[in-house]
């Protein structure tokens, strides 16, 4: 049985997206969102859009995660709901 590579990547993307909105700890949610961005970046690269993949890796997985971590540290780490 030979599963295509993009199916596996899409599976990881969906798992990361669901995990990021269900997890209670906000710092963990930020980290999972970074992993989500990285898998999206791999998916863009696999689809041939290398420039989009580069932007996704540097902006979303790089500085977006840093900004969200800074925001979590300035506010609260636990969700109210």
């Amino acid at each position, binding site marked *: 049985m030979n599963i295509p590579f993009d199916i596996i990547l899409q599976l990881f993307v969906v798992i990361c997206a669901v995990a990021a909105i269900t997890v209670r700890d906000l710092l963990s949610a930020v980290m999972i969102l970074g992993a989500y961005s990285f898998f999206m970046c791999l998916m863009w690269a696999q689809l041939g859009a290398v420039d989009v993949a580069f932007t996704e890796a*540097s902006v979303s997985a*790089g500085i977006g995660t840093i900004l969200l971590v800074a*925001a979590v*540290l300035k506010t609260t780490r636990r969700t109210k709901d």
Partner: protein
Amino acid sequence: MIGKSDDIIIKTIARIFVPFLQLYALYVIMHGHYSPGGGFQGGVILGASMALLLITHGYDELKRRLPEGVLLLLGSLGVLIYAGIGLLCLILGGNYLDYSQLSVILGVDAAHARSLGILGVELGVGFTVMAIMYSIFFDISTGGILPEDQRREGRVEGER
């Protein structure tokens, strides 16, 4: 969060990493016109390297290396470079950002002038994105309250 880290491992790793990060960012900016990447991505990587220095080496060190005035100057200089190159092309008789008109000034043929013109625009974008990304991170992590203001008021908050 912007205090100096006490851990020698974190500080040493950051000190080793930051020059390579910045070299890679400069490579991404300079090769933006014939490979993936460009001013925006390279500027983001430069800003991230500055943010790494800020969270490991502290605010005082970064204030010495990159004062806020220089940051504002870089941010507006990039916009000036971008708009200036565009307006220069407009003055020389072409459309806005029509780089082939720059061949009169640079003394090269039109294709080479296009390459050099887009390199200038990428440099401007890189400066602005680096300064703005770093200052967004700085403003979020301090909450707008600088450590020197707290020191002046005589209350020193514990480092996070």
